[in-house]
């Protein structure tokens, strides 16, 4: 499928986040290039030895994704800042426990941040309130389209999201960007629990294959 997303009609449907979507112009380091000084895995190993400079470099590479992810889940910029900071400090504290054999540094840090964001929104509001809210809020996928830029990685992710079935896409994105449990997703989409569980799994597997992710 070739869908570079040029002339995407949906991109004008909502104003951009007021903070602006300025992305760093420098490309992400290639995760396959191993020993480079800017490779996040190498940086995190140095962080584990107490290297604050390496942590600053990691911050510079990762903060737009980490903050952006947290912001999307908690939605409130002040709270997003707080949660992002807690996640960063936790990553610093526990850097020695990062094991590259288990996954990439980027994934490790984003997992910490996502968990914190999700824990925060889940404890903030009774589930019933959250469910009511989403009914009147926009579909997260529109945000995805909205934020998409010309960067190749983003286009690839977007193209792969486009390759999911509607139910897979909604189940995955409601969970990831809104912090819903699969039970809540099941209720929201009026779909049986086992189906939601399965769609989350096979949706992610399809995304994995499309993105060519390996552990």
């Amino acid at each position: 499928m070739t869908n570079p997303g040029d002339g995407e009609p949906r991109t004008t449907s909502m104003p951009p986040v007021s903070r602006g979507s300025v992305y760093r112009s420098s490309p992400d380091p290639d995760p396959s290039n191993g020993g480079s000084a800017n490779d996040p895995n190498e940086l995190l190993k140095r962080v584990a030895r107490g290297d604050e400079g390496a942590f600053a470099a990691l911050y510079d590479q990762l903060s737009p994704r980490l903050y952006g992810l947290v912001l999307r889940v908690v939605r409130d910029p002040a709270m997003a800042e707080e949660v992002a900071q807690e996640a960063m400090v936790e990553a610093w504290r526990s850097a020695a426990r990062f094991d590259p054999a288990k996954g990439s540094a980027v994934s490790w840090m984003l997992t910490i941040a996502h968990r914190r964001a999700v824990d925060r929104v889940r404890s903030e509001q009774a589930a019933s309130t959250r469910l009511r809210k989403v009914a009147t809020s926009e579909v997260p996928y529109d945000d995805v389209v909205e934020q998409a830029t010309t960067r190749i990685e983003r286009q690839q992710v977007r193209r792969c999201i486009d390759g999911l079935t509607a139910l897979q896409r909604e189940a995955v994105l409601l969970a990831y960007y809104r912090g819903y449990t699969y039970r809540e997703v099941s209720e929201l989409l009026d779909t049986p629990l086992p189906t939601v569980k399965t769609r989350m799994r096979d949706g992610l597997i399809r995304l994995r294959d499309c993105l060519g992710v390996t552990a």
Partner: protein
Amino acid sequence: MTTSDIHSLSGAYALDAVDDLERAAFERHLRECDACALEVGELRETVSRLADTAAVEPPPSLRASVLDAVARTPQAPPGRPGRAQTTGHAAAARWRRFAAVSVAAGVIAAGAGIGTWTVADRNVDRAEKVAAAAQRRAAEIEQVLAAPDVKVYPMTGKDGGTVNVAVARSLNQAVAVLNGLPSPGKDRVYQLWMIPESGPSDARSPGALRVGQTTQLLEIGNAVSFGVTIERQGGAQTPDLNALVGRVGINQ
């Protein structure tokens, strides 16, 4: 939960779309299933790529405050977070370890000042305290959820929602996890009770839940059942049975 049930949870787990007890159960499963661990690793990597589309430049002030906090925060050594080594489970997955830290961190953070903090209150001290307290609590909660004799008793609230109570008699401790309970009402709070044979008048409670708190550690003692009530702000000494949300036996 059957093996195939739990296996199908890998997607929801990778998306953080499970509750604390399901997470603990799944992580126990992960320790015994290498193929599952590999799959979860790949799904986690996949999920992280979704963050590519969410990237937003953070406020410039965040960089300085993070780096300042980092400069003042000691690092934890490799290995298990701050508690004595326990026998067994030596091969417990790292995922599980840091996931547990994150759970408790979320719980602590939620209780530390929901509704009261302002932008001016956000500071490095808080982040440090949260991180340190989280580690202590995480260890306790993780220990209960990982106990070999842990049993889970689900309780349904009368107005919806569930409370799952994970009981580890070998540790004399239980962890209650609230899920989707409605708001207790203005100036009201939820309070969890451990109730002995002699009845609710002798019930014990660690105190009312804070706003937003969804997990609580409880000592089991001579309790035969677990109950939840709605009490006035500040909590009560004995449970108000007229405001009983639910009760479940924990002795079978």
